[in-house]
């Protein structure tokens, strides 16, 4: 039973992380550390990004050609790998967001009104 739970949680995290990365990149190119920081800041640190799983996620997205990468220099003059949304990535972001809203609203309807 425990392996099963763990497995389903990983699947959920992966899926969610992908969507969040795409969302962060909509504001322009960003390197891995920047993406992690952006997610943490924007969610008031509710979601802590495991840096260890960030890079596999980035590589996955890159392989699917939803993002692409190039080496650039950061504002504080460090060479880093910067990621950028592709056209397909933009489309995937829309689809994913859409599905997410439908799913969460469906779940919300079942769970009832939010408690204040």
């Amino acid at each position: 039973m425990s392996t099963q739970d763990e497995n389903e949680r990983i699947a959920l995290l992966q899926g969610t992380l992908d969507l969040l990365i795409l969302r962060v990149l909509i504001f322009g190119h960003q390197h891995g550390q920047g993406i992690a920081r952006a997610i943490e800041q924007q969610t008031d640190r509710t979601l802590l990004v495991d840096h260890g799983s960030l890079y596999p996620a980035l590589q996955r997205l890159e392989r699917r050609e939803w993002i692409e990468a190039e080496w650039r220099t950061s504002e504080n003059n460090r060479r880093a790998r910067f990621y950028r949304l592709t056209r397909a990535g933009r489309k995937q972001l829309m689809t994913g967001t859409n599905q997410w809203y439908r799913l969460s609203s469906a779940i919300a309807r079942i769970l009832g009104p939010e408690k204040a």
Partner: protein
Amino acid sequence: MARGQGPSDDEFREEIEAHVALETDRLIADGLSPEDAAIMARRTFGNVTRVRERFFESRRLMWLEDVRQDTRFAFRSLRRSPGFTAVALLTLAIGLGANTAIFSVVSAVLLRPLAYSDPDQLILIEHPPLGGSPPWLRDAWRARTRTLADFAGFEPSSSGTVVAGNQPMHVSAAHVTSNFFPLLGITAALGRTFASTDAQPGAPTVAVLAHNFWVRQFGGSSDVIGRTVTLTDVTFTGEAGIIVGVLPQHFRFPVADPPGNAPLFAAMQPDVIVLSRDDAWQQVLGRLSPGNTPAAASAELSGIFKQEASAHYAASLVERTHVVATPLQDRLVGDTRHRLLLLMAAVGCVLLVVCANIANLLLARVTGRQPEFAIRAALGARTGRLIRMILTESLLLAGFGAVAALLLAYWGNGVLPSMLAARASHVETVSIDWWVLVFNTVLAVATGVLSGLTSLTAIRSRGFACDTHRAGQSVTGRTRLCEGLLAAEVAVVLVLVLTAALLSQTLWNLQHSNRGFDGDGLLTAAVMPGMSGTIPELQNLTSTFFDRVIEQIGRVPGVESVAAASTVPFSGPTMGMSGVSIIGRPSASESGTSVSVAVVTPGYFATMRNRLMAGRDFNRLDLPDRDRVTVVNSAFVRALASDLPLLGTQIQFGRSQLTVIGIVEDTPDTSLREPARPFVYVPLAQTVGSQFVFARLTVLARARTGDPAGLFPSVREAVWALGHDIVIDEVKTMNERLAAAVRTERDSSILFGLLAAIALLVAVAGVYGVVAYSVSQRTREMGIRIALGARHGQVVGDIVRESAWPVAIGIAMGLAGAAVAARATASTLFEIQPTDPPTYVATALALSLTALTAAWIPARRATRVDPIKALRAE
């Protein structure tokens, strides 16, 4: 760097370092000391090595990891629904197992090369309606052929008596020319095979022994070389042969059985192989010279035949004769090929039904799991991955099914070869070899993919990400596909059931065909005295011996009458004698007609209840010093003297002239399908003075009442009273012999019946499942209708009607398919048309009723729906 490739190893290391450096910068900016910031940054990032490991794994083993995950997931999800899994596995195991088992026989019989050197080049040359090839034809062929590298002659084995030393033995023997073994590439295990010097005039006749016979009869002793065996029977020459060698154990004599012959005799391997006389009519086994085809050989040999034959035969006979060269393997396999391919098609059909059924089951599952897929899709699972998940599940099922199938096939290999390959005498073993394993695997994968993909079509039309709460309502698309699969199942099942019905009627027709004698109440047993002596002594001994045997058995209470014969119906192939003619009458067809010979005692026809159509039976006065007499059957009259009265005329038979004293009704020789062969019956007493010894005859005893098998103990007592060295074997009732003669048909009928029953069960389960599922999905609708006052009968009727359509369409398709399939089965049927209307109508009706019953049972459940509960359920 190309798009979609991801970073290289070095780039990735650099990227991580950059990440840590950037993090450190940020922490310093937040106010930490550079040292603390560096430590903190590393800690936040976590285990760098682990991340790099994951990087490598993801690049190299991503797909493997996915497969592992999918498999584990599929395994768990199958375990969660044991009902579905059990049904799917069971049907898959049966479907795949039947295919694997039949294929292992096909592989052994049709695909495995013969155990001769370069077996592809070997051909059998025949020229129906003429039996063997006469010497002048073989001489002409040898002088002029270019397509053949060499050819040898042989006379297939027939059973009879051999006297080794002074001891008579019952053996089967074949004759071959001296180049027969070199042609096949066979060398002796002990001693030698034949040499060309053996065939020179004046050289003594030589013989080789089969390995098994040598072990059985001579204890495998090597001093057998140089001993003399004497062949003394109507089919043998009566001359002495010197044993020169023993054949290797693996050697199989190429027995090509005449089409339609009963399987029982087809595999008859000769115990003794004797060098042939050159003046004999022989079967011809050829080896093609390189680059030539059987067709080219046929054309060339046929041309030579036409030129030479006009000097020997009437023009009409030459016209009718076709010289055909057939690859040896094809000829040995004979109509077993047809039966095997038919069975292969049938098991293929069963697998299709299984496939459709599993697709249907999976479809229901996939539809039921729509919300799960929707969530997965929403969380970023790609469609490809979801498809793979479903496919993994069906492939996993198929994989387990394949393993179970192999076990089933392994078990089946104990039973099937004797049922299917009995006639293919060249097949020694049927085993699960690489070919079978590959076949099994390919079939399992195809089944898994096919049923998985079919179930996916329902989803692909709508996509995974449909609204979770609407998933249960959209049944329509699914239903259409379900109905299609159902119709296909019904169609295939109908074809199978029809074929099984036709085959079982064939069996019945054969068992109840007119046989010209009464088999009920007949006990048969082969009896051979222990005796020795010279051939004339043996002739006298056997004649008086069987007189006494018949007298003894006649005294047994419960025996109505008793007789003995050298051959009885279904006891084995009787060799034909060619060159039988009616004295004083020119006959054009005589040379081609081969006539069978049976030696009988007086009272044989009465005991058999074989009707005498004219003249008289033999009696005790037909002794060696009287006129030599014979009784012939009506096939003989038809073949040789249809136009003239035959009674009282004389026929030339070998060296003797026989007067025809009676004509009897035809009885079958070896097969019930073949028209009866011309028969000449000769009284045993008059064989004295000929070159023949009949030491072993089949005794027939007719019981007054009841089961003749019960007579055997007292019959044996009566015979043994004459001496305890008397061998009694092959004790069978005539009905048992009959059953053995129709074994091929019975086995076909059983196998097809079994396959049809399996397919029917699977299809019934399919109909039941689909209707049950549809009912469970429409509880609400039923509830509303019942609440609004619909009668139960209407509700049930509506549901049954829905499945009636696919069943009706399936039946229509099945009838059309059966009419096509009939062409393939036509040759295996007997006295029934492949499109026999009553059978078609009865089968279609029975199948419709069965299918509708399968629909009606779950449909009734709809009426038990409590309307209140049904409405609340939503």
